[in-house]
């Protein structure tokens, strides 16, 4: 993953070299486009063996940031044609040696070194290297086709080719004489079906004479050999060009994909890679790797080959867009990085929100409470230019901040009672352990290390409950990956991950860290003692191999004589793990901005890249630098201009919902909403195990709930999935608020209006207070005039005011954080 990020940074750097001058100086993008440079990809050509080849693409960068595919227009020259041969934009070996290809376009010239080795050697056809990619490329081993668990129409391939040896056996030996015909290769069922010569449920997959066809025939003609010895594996996949900015619908960019192998060779696999566009609405990609711009937006275009998936971003702009970047203040590094991305997209961020909006938003987000009346006046009336920062600091120091985050963590750690496994007492101890850590601002790395490496009784060392919530080794490892690294690796249990780099090897090697967790009954029957057994292994599903522990995407550590979990925890919650800090930063970010930089936060994968990689990297870096003190991170986020943006959109950012160009409306989550209603109605709730008046946020047990909380989607903590917390508004929620017993009875129960009237407060004052309490603002003139009119007419002021109260609590302005 590090390689990706580094590469992408480079990408971005070179991509925007063109307008870095502009960005630093005036922020206007010149309408006239001047060619600034051309780039040729890949930057070097290595041809190994007679059938090798390499296609090149030429990308022109213009002063206004636009990129164009000028491969066809460029002039090509080979310094010494004795070594290489050019056909189109593809180079083929002729003889061993070194030369270079000069590519010129307009006034720009680039030289590409070319090296040819073993030009006269024909690499023998390989099942794994040549044939397996055909099944991937043409979709044969997809889940809907022969990759299905029981195969399709009597023939099965492993899903996305996770088991090439098995595929070889099934293809060649399962039903001998049917699928292959080595005597008449063209008449093999494999070929006839693929070419659509005979009926095939999957239809015609490739043309006669196409590369997949030729590859299969060559393999059959060679006698359908099995690969002898060790076959090189793909170590990395390169997809070129590194992104692009496409000027209007219909603009095209050819991609070229190169795979690097463990034996040091590389291959142009453009024709064998499977291309996927992350956003077909903005850019489509053909099966040959031709990107075509559609409507405005950004698409992550990926190439999949073997187990590797890599992608590049393509930005599509309306044709000939005129754009001026207004001078926009940057409060901190977050704004700098967000603006950088927005400039690329030609989007202007919204204006900063009002003080009232900010007060409400920050209070809800940071502390999960609504601002009290006094605080409201104090804040609104303050003339301090730093009052927002001060507010953030103030909120961060409230106990409610801690409670809110304890709740968030309790969800991730699944704190709840589990029949026969986690008793109420254990659960409570676990919760208290967590609360203590967060309240004392224990750095996240320490906390996670303590948690994952925990040994002892579930009463005496409550962190061990982590291994009681989930006792299945594989599930435990999946949870760890999902919570602390944001990755869903479940797929890789049965097959290589289809949209990520994780293979079954990775999966089982990672699971091996949890294979030696021992559990025994404590003295108290409710207590379990978790200890390191020091033995026990995880075996691979295919082939039943014992897997050595290996960090996900990392090294193979020495675990001999050590507690494997401690080894893992030490790596996991450390800067060596590239995912940990970024993942936690992303979780925090998603809490405040309503959407992760990677969304969902626990769905980190190659094919779901961060919308702003630099921002995420920086947040991760900062988080690490803060010694995993996320309070500081929250402060950075909440004091950024980006956080403070208004929900009001402008013309350029109206359609954007991913790049944080404006604030998003977010429904307030269940616990906070209930607490807020209780707060404004001045009523108290009673939850099991908690004193009267305790807040819903404080509920320790995931299994504790009530109708309101369930309706508004409180997490049951049965899984670690971020999707457990339901944030989507729905009809039953609306109906419950309108007719249910919560709002109405709480208004009645709190008797707020009655008390105020008793206090001889004027209806106007009471109205004012209601608005400030519920919406953190004063009623506007229109609202005021209408309500005053009603109040004047009605004799029963209390009824009118209570109705108003009810109406306010049912308003979307109340239900949403905005």
């Amino acid at each position, binding site marked *: 993953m590090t390689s990706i990020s580094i590469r992408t940074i480079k990408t971005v750097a070179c991509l925007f070299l063109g307008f870095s001058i502009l960005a630093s100086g005036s922020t206007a993008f010149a309408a006239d486009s001047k060619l600034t440079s051309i780039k040729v990809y890949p930057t070097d050509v290595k041809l190994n063996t007679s059938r090798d080849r390499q296609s090149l693409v030429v990308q022109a960068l213009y002063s206004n940031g636009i990129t164009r595919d000028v491969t066809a227009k460029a002039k090509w020259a080979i310094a010494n044609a004795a070594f290489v041969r050019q056909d189109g934009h593809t180079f083929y070996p002729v003889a061993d040696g070194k030369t270079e290809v000069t590519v010129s376009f307009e006034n720009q010239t680039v030289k590409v070194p070319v090296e040819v080795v073993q030009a006269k050697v024909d690499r023998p056809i390989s099942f794994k290297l040549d044939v397996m990619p055909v099944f991937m490329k043409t979709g044969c081993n997809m889940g809907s086709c022969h990759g299905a668990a029981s195969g399709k129409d*009597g023939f099965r391939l492993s899903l996305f080719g996770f088991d090439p040896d098995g595929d070889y056996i099934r293809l060649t*030996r399962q039903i*001998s*004489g*049917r*699928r*292959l*015909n*080595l*005597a*008449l290769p063209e*008449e093999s*069922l494999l070929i*006839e*079906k693929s070419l*659509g*010569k*005979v*009926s*095939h*449920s*999957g*239809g*015609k997959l490739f043309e006669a004479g196409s590369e997949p066809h030729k590859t299969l025939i060559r393999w059959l*003609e060679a*006698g359908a050999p099995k690969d002898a010895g060790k076959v090189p594996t793909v170590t990395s996949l390169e997809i070129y060009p590194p992104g692009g900015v496409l000027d209007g619908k219909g603009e095209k960019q050819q991609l070229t994909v190169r795979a690097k192998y463990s034996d040091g060779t590389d291959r142009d696999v453009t024709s064998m890679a499977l291309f996927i566009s992350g956003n077909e609405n903005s850019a489509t990609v053909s099966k040959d790797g031709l990107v075509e711009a559609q409507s405005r937006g950004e698409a992550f275009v990926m190439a999949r080959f073997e187990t590797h998936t890599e992608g590049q971003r393509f930005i599509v702009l309306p044709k000939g867009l005129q754009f001026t970047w207004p001078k926009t203040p940057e409060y901190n590094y977050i704004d700098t990085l967000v603006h950088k991305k927005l400039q690329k997209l030609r989007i202007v961020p919204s204006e900063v929100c009002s003080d009232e909006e900010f007060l409400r938003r920050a209070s809800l987000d940071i502390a999960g409470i609504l601002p009290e009346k006094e605080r409201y006046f104090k804040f609104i009336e303050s003339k301090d230019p730093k009052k927002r920062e001060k507010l953030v600091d103030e909120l961060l120091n409230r106990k409610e901040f801690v409670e809110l985050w304890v709740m968030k963590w309790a969800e991730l750690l699944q704190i709840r009672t589990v029949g026969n496994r986690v008793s109420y007492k254990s659960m409570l101890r676990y919760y208290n352990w967590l609360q203590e850590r967060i309240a004392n601002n224990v750095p996240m790395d320490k906390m996670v290390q303590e948690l994952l490496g925990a040994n002892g009784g579930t009463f005496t060392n409550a962190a061990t409950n982590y291994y009681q919530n989930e006792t299945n080794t594989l599930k435990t490892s999946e949870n760890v990956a999902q919570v602390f690294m944001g990755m869903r690796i479940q797929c890789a249990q049965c097959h290589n991950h289809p949209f990520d780099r994780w293979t079954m090897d990775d999966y089982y090697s990672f699971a091996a860290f949890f294979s030696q967790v021992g559990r025994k009954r404590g003295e108290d029957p409710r207590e379990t003692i978790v200890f390191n057994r020091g033995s026990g292994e995880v075996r691979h599903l295919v082939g039943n191999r014992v897997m050595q522990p290996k960090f996900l995407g990392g090294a193979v550590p020495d675990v001999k004589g050590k507690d494997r979990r401690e080894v893992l925890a030490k790596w996991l919650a450390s800067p060596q793990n590239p995912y940990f800090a970024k993942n936690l930063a992303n979780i925090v970010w998603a809490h405040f901005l309503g959407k992760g930089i990677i969304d969902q936060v626990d769905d980190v994968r190659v094919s779901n890249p961060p919308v702003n990689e630099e921002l995420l990297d920086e947040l991760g870096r900062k988080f690490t630098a803060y010694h995993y003190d996320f309070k500081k991170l929250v402060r950075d986020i909440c004091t950024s201009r980006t956080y403070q943006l208004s929900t009001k959109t402008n013309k350029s950012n109206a359609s954007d919902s991913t790049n944080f160009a404006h604030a998003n409306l977010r429904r307030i989550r269940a616990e906070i909403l209930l607490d807020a209603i209780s707060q404004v109605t001045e009523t108290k709730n009673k939850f099991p195990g908690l004193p009267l008046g305790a807040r819903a946020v404080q509920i320790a047990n995931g299994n504790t709930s009530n109708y309101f909380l369930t309706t508004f989607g409180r997490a049951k903590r049965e899984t670690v999935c971020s999707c457990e917390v339901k944030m989507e508004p729905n009809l039953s929620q609306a109906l419950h608020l309108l007719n249910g017993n919560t709002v109405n009875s709480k208004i009645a129960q709190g008797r707020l209006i009655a008390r105020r009237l008793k206090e001889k407060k004027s209806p106007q004052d009471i109205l004012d207070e209601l608005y400030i309490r519920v919406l953190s603002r004063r009623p506007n003139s229109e609202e005021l005039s209408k309500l005053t009119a009603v109040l004047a007419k009605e004799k029963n002021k209390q009824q009118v005011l209570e109705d108003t109260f009810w109406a306010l609590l049912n308003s979307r302005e109340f239900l949403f954080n905005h």
Partner: protein
Amino acid sequence: MARRCHRIPVFLFFSLFVFVSVSTNDTQVFAQKKKPVKITYEEHVKPIFRQRCFACHNGNKKKGSLDLTNYTNLMLGGSSGEVIERGSSGDSYLYMLVTHESEPYMPAKAAKIPNTELEIIRKWIDGGALENKGSKAVAAKKKFDLTLQSAPSGRPAGPPLMPGILSRQPLFRTAKTTALTAIASSPWAPLVAVAGQKQIFLYNSRTLEILGILPFPEGTTNVLKFSRNGSLLLAGGGRGAAKGVVVVWNIRTGERVIEVGDEFDTVLAADISSDQTMIALGGPGRVVRIYDTATGKLMHEIKKHTDWITALEFSPDSVLLATADRNGGMFVWEAFTAREYLSLKGHRATVTDVSWRIDSNVLASCSEDTTIKLWEMNNGGQIRNWGAHGGGVESIEFTRDGRIASCGRDRVAKIWDQNGKLKRSFSAFKDLALRVTHCDESNYIIAGDWTGEIRVWNVADGKQVGTLSSNPIKLETRLASVQQAVAPQDANYKKLLAQAQQSKKTLDQTAVNLANAKKTLTEAQKQVATSADAIKKSQQLLAQYQKQKLGADTIVKKLSAFLPALTISVAKGEEAVKKSGNDKTLAGIVARLKALQVQKQAELQKSTKTATDTAAVIKKEQATLAASQAVSKKSQAQIKASQAQIKALQPKIKPMTVQFQAMSKSSAAAAQTLATTKKTVKKWQVSLEMEKQFTVLAGLKNQLKESQTKQAEFDAEWKKQQAEQNKFTLIYTKANQALVANQAKVNQLKQTLAATQKKHQGFIQQTAALTAAIPLLKDSLKKTQEAQKSSGNDKEIVALVTQLTGVVAAKEKILTATQQAAQLAQKDAAKIQQDLAAAEKIAAAASKTATDTKKNADAFAPKVIAAKQSFDATVKAVAEVQKKIAATRLQLEKMAKSVL
């Protein structure tokens, strides 16, 4: 249990099927006829629907309640109502969807149907959305009756049923082989059928020699089964997700005799009942369908299986049918009624194969769950169950003698006894062992694997006998390869022959040498003996001579010692004599002395001579001795040498003989090989030649088919023309009859008219008379009345007046009546005149029609004759082609015999 169904033997008719290009031929026929092509559902539209729509709109799935797989259901429409508006494609919902004029676009998730096919659909709907070709379809109705009198269970009479003369040329050869999909062995002949690509290969299971090729252009063969008597071979298969069929061949002739099945996915399992009345098939469609072999009609559909049908087999007595599926489900049905008899529960994975014991009392099944299970058929109990092949059992077969052959994913083929005891397992394949069969005639197990390798083992000793190929080489290649072998084999033979000859030569030489040595030895030995005698003799002689010489020497020595003194004495004596003057005494003495001296001198001389002579003899004899001794020595050496030589040569003879024998044997073998190869060359050459004949035959068969089609067409044309002619004749006859009838009517009418007119005239005259008379009468009356008045009512006059008045009234009444009658008559006349005119017109028309149709009918006569001639010509053509076919067949037989 079902009873055996006896069928009336219908005319046995082996279809004249060649293969696919039927549609093109049809088009050609159409083109030749220059008539608008009649587009029908069965022929043109269904194949399009099959490929594009059947996957969703079939009898089982019925997406949108629409089933396009048969005409009736198609015309019924789906949940959105009728989808075809006959004669108006624009109003047909189906057409609107497939042309993307309306949504949902069809076929769903697939490319639009090509315009050429859309055009066919449009033409079909606009042409009235016909179901089939009508008369033609009826004419082409096939009838087979292969019904046997009883289900055979024993060996059929006669020699083993082996294929006749079939093409051995593979339709094509692929670069690689693929998984073996089907294999079967004949129950009563050393014959194996192996599934190839769009063709089936027949091999002799003993010699492993290829016997023939059966084309299966429909696609992959997933199942092969011999009929229980071994006379038919059934193949089920097709093209995955497109078409599934079952084809049955006559083994002897190689002709297709049955084609049934219309699946929209390939057939995975099929069988023909032993009485050959039913064919059951199933596949991914999950439905078991049972067809009647005599009519080709669907008899039953079994829809109980929840997954792909993977195996089925009729019991050898044709009473039961066992079926099994990919989910482990297995049922036994009454074959003739398709009623459920047993549900066999036990397999936990795909049942891959089922096989009946020959007595139909036990069913064996095997599954991917690694087990083989045996089931009894009274209650469906599982009587045996054993783990047979790790990973899964792929194929099993009950042998004739109740053993079980199996193979599976452990790459091994095995044979078991019925108790599940492993009798033998065979060498492992390189990949999954997929299909197995046991050839009961040779006791060989034949199995094939995922790579397409097929091995044959002898069960008796477990040794691999050889291999078969699911992708055999082309005849040309075979020929070339054997031809290539000729030269090296020839060279080899020659080399071996030369070597053998050389070896013979060496052997002979050695034998001669040995004989010589032996001879030399004998001679030398003889020589040695002779020499020894000579030496002995010489030594004796020498001893004698030396004795002689010693005697002589002694004498000489003795004489030499006193002779000089004697001589002197003589001399002195003579001197003395002389001196003494011839004293006689003295002289006598001296003479005696002299005589003595002479005597002694002579004696000396003689002895000296003897000594010298003897010395010479001795010397000579010594030389002789030495020579003899030398000879003896030499001979002895010779003996030694010869003995050594013999010793050296003697052991060489045997190996040399062996070597020579071996060499002559191997050269003989090489000669044999060469001869065989040459024969093989000849065989493949002839086979290739035969291929030409097969091509000719195929062409002829096509021609025959065409001719027959033409014949049928001309027959129809002739009949049509005849019918037309008859029609005209009929019209003519009718018109003639009408003419005659009308003419009679005209005459009659004319008469009636004349009578009426006459009557009318009468009435007119009468009227005129009356009209004239009445005023007079009236006047008379008036005058009479006046007279009466004036008469003062004379009584008589009054009476007269009264009378007159009555008369006048009567007359006036008559007048009115007559006038009315006249009018009526006039009207009648007019009507009759009208009728007459009409009748005359009809008569004229009839006359004209008669004349015209006569002309037409006459005109048709030559057409009818021409059509008849054309028909006759086609009949002749058919006969000719048939003759040619017979000739070609004969030719082929001759050729085949020439290399047998």
